[in-house]
């Protein structure tokens, strides 16, 4: 493949004619900060970064890259947790944060149309005054872009009741590897005209096309909410409580779990009054009409108590409830207080198997002599075992590799998935074949080859194709 290094001047000049000097970065001081995303211990130097402002510019860049045979890695704010937006050798980094306009909020159809670089939280903030709600709330929602959320099909704290990003995507504008611009989907609630192509691009991690606009569904904003905090003296009791809540067919908005280590770190940062003595804490939030919220809250409290909860307390008021949820969103970063390197996983199992995976993670930590903190969206069966380690300690990092491998194997054995919401990227790429039969793994590759035959869009992410091996 012709890499950027072979003909740098010509390519840079061509890009410059498209975006101008201000939106093209080539100096080392500019490039170094684009060598990573939010994933631990992963970086790769960027060769150039372009920050276009229109879909026309994006299309031109893709065409130039195609003609030169140069790979393109698309990114937003770079908060990804699987290394999906880490640059590849000689490639162009296409950063879309400047395309950040909310184009249309349609209160009659309950939709919002945004450019790809709009910040996730800004979407819900725009919906709020209309009594509307955009539920997906990944931990990074204050800075993550909607394009990144769609490309990774991000989850969040409210996935249990409201689903994930995919459930809100009604339409997408996509720049195809050829540089053509395609519109997929519509404002219609029902639309079965041909393949559901938009769904192919949701979670495609920038390997099939470049998402430039997103049409999202909004829902009525819930009238009331109630937040409870239950603490337990064992992780197992907490996991059992969550499994039973689901079994009793209660679907609250949020069922979050934090172990003692996580609680300690979050409390150290946020000071919101989390119990730091308990072995496990479950944050439960129910939202909807006043009466339903009351009923659900009482039922969940009763189940927690029946499972031996040490304490069940209500959030003092709305502001306190928001503070608790906000604090929970910082869990991953707050855990970085303990050791230099924080490796976060997002394995997900059927909810009836929660107790097993939580116990297993604990055993793995002991077996490989590693410090592992666990938190996660228990209501979704989505667990975040977080290994607290030091990337400069080679021996310990070997043990980390073994531990991860063990956790992934167990997850698959329990009928789970190695990634619930962060995507495959680079971090989970080696483990993906374990989860799939040969037929389903090949099917994904065939889709990639059909849409991007030259293999120029984010090559080496999710899987390797023979001709695009990128280390």
């Amino acid at each position: 493949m012709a890499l950027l290094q072979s003909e740098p001047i010509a390519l840079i000049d061509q890009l410059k004619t498209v975006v101008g000097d201000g939106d093209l970065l080539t100096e080392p001081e500019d490039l170094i900060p684009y060598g990573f995303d939010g994933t631990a211990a992963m970086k790769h130097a960027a060769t150039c970064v372009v920050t276009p402002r229109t879909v026309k510019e994006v299309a031109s860049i893709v065409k130039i890259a195609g003609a030169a045979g140069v790979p393109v890695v698309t990114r937003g704010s770079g908060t990804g947790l699987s290394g999906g937006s880490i640059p590849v050798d000689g490639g162009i980094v296409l950063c879309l944060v400047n395309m950040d306009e909310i184009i249309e909020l349609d209160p009659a159809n309950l939709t919002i149309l945004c450019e790809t670089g709009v910040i996730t939280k800004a979407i819900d903030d725009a919906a709020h005054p209309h009594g509307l709600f955009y539920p997906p709330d990944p931990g990074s929602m204050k800075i993550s872009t909607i394009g990144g959320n769609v490309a990774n099909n991000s989850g969040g704290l409210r996935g249990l009741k409201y689903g994930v990003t995919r459930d809100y995507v009604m339409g997408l504008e996509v720049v195809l590897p050829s540089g053509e611009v395609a519109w997929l989907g519509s404002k219609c609630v029902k639309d079965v005209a041909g393949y559901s192509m938009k769904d192919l691009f949701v979670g495609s991690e920038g390997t099939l096309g470049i998402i430039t606009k997103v049409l999202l569904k909004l829902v009525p904003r819930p009238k009331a909410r109630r937040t409870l905090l239950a603490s337990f003296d064992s992780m197992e009791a907490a996991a059992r409580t969550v499994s039973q809540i689901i079994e009793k067919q209660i679907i609250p908005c949020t069922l979050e779990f934090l172990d003692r280590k996580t609680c300690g770190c979050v409390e150290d940062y946020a000071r919101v009054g989390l119990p730091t003595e308990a072995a496990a804490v479950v944050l439960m939030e129910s939202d909807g009409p006043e009466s339903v919220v009351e009923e659900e809250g009482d039922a969940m409290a009763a189940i927690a108590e029946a499972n031996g909860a040490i304490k069940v307390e209500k959030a003092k008021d709305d502001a306190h409830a928001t503070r608790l949820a906000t604090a929970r969103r910082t869990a991953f970063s707050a855990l970085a207080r303990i050791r230099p390197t924080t490796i976060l996983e997002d394995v997900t199992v059927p909810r009836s198997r929660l107790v097993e995976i939580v116990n297993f993670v604990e055993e793995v930590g002991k077996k490989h002599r590693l410090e592992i903190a666990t938190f996660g969206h228990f209501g979704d069966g989505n667990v975040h075992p977080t290994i607290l380690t030091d990337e400069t300690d080679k021996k310990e990092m070997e043990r980390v590799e073994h531990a991860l491998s063990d956790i992934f194997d167990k997850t698959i054995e329990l009928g789970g998935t190695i990634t619930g919401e962060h995507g495959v990227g680079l971090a989970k790429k080696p483990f993906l074949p374990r989860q799939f039969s040969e037929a389903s793994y090949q099917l994904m590759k065939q889709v990639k080859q059909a849409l991007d035959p030259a293999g120029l869009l984010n090559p080496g992410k999710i899987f390797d194709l023979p001709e695009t091996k990128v280390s």
Partner: protein
Amino acid sequence: MSEAKTLTPLKYLGDLDYSVVQQCMHCGMCLPSCPTYLETKKERNSPRGRIALMRSIADGELKVTKEFGEEMYYCLGCLACTTACPAGVNYPELFENARAEVEHQGVLFNPERRFWRWLTLNQLFSKPRLLRAVGRLLWLYQVSGLSWLVRKSGLLWLAPKNLRELEPSTPVVQRRFSDELIEESEAPSGIRYRVGLLTGCVQDLIFPDVNRATADVLLENGCEVTTPRLQGCCGSLHAHNGDLDQAAERARALLDRFDLSSLDAIITNAAGCGSHLKHFSNLLRDDAAYATKAAEWDQKVKDISEWLVAIDFRKPSKSDTGEAVTATYHEACHLCHGQGISSQPRELLKSIPGLELVELENATDCCGSAGIYNITQPEQAGKLQKAKVASLQKTGASLVATANPGCHLQIQNGLGDSATVIHPVTLLADAYRKERKS
């Protein structure tokens, strides 16, 4: 690579404990808090981007270049990122060491810059007597009508452009400085605590009345106040501008002026100073003669509002204050982000009879003063000032309370006559005074 490569061995970023750099896990939570990132949306202008550059330098992947130097000086040092950072990255330490490295390597060298740095950091703000003498001259210049004459005559055009642009906003120097307004020792009738009072440098020249008000409220609350003479700059100006050696020198000078063991607290009323003063032990870590004293000092330094709330200050009683006045509160970066002090100044304000406190939108956003940032980066500082003034005007408040001389000047310049900027402690001292009158 940029042209300005240098072979000078790293002094600051190389010696820095690597775990401080490693603490940043580049999650990006800092990005939405950073005024320069929000302005440009370029990663190098963000906290995690700057830390990545520092780490590259420590790892030997990047040399200290002019570009790097400029980036470190584009950072406001507002520390909003430290409040946003769940991982607890010690950005102030990284930032100060990075700027010190930039100066050590001389990548931003030019004769004019060196002259101004020498004049300010090595002369004016290192020599308390000289600073006061210059302050006197400036006062004379301002009151004698000479400043009017210079402006009218066009003589100002002889000055360098940035100085010329600043001249109209030059703060007004006061006739009497702190030492003339406050006795070296002042005692209340019943002594509950013994405290030392820091008079600062800018505060001493431009706002000595705030120092007097601070002494007044301390006396009112049973604190015996010791105010050593001729204190000078605490060194925060030096530390924030890449001169850690001179900062250490200023710290030692200040430590020598106070008899720490006899004092319960050292009181400061300037946020920028306070946030620096509380970390002398970092600065003097390797100085055997001062390290222990510095550690005790760090424990005893308190912002005036922090101290008053801690000792449960006496709320002024209601008096016939006439019409109610509306005030709002702008949080100085180095008070809220640098020291985590947010509720205490509001408690002070709420205790004042006849004062209605309205909350300011984005109260913790930097006003662009940021030490001498408004001089070095007038464009970015101007944008922040404009945004701050706009949210202040939305409140309709006639008083803007803030607890840092830099913010005070920057905001007053931005507001013009539409509202008055005032230190919370001045308002509290007034309230006590009115009590006595009624």
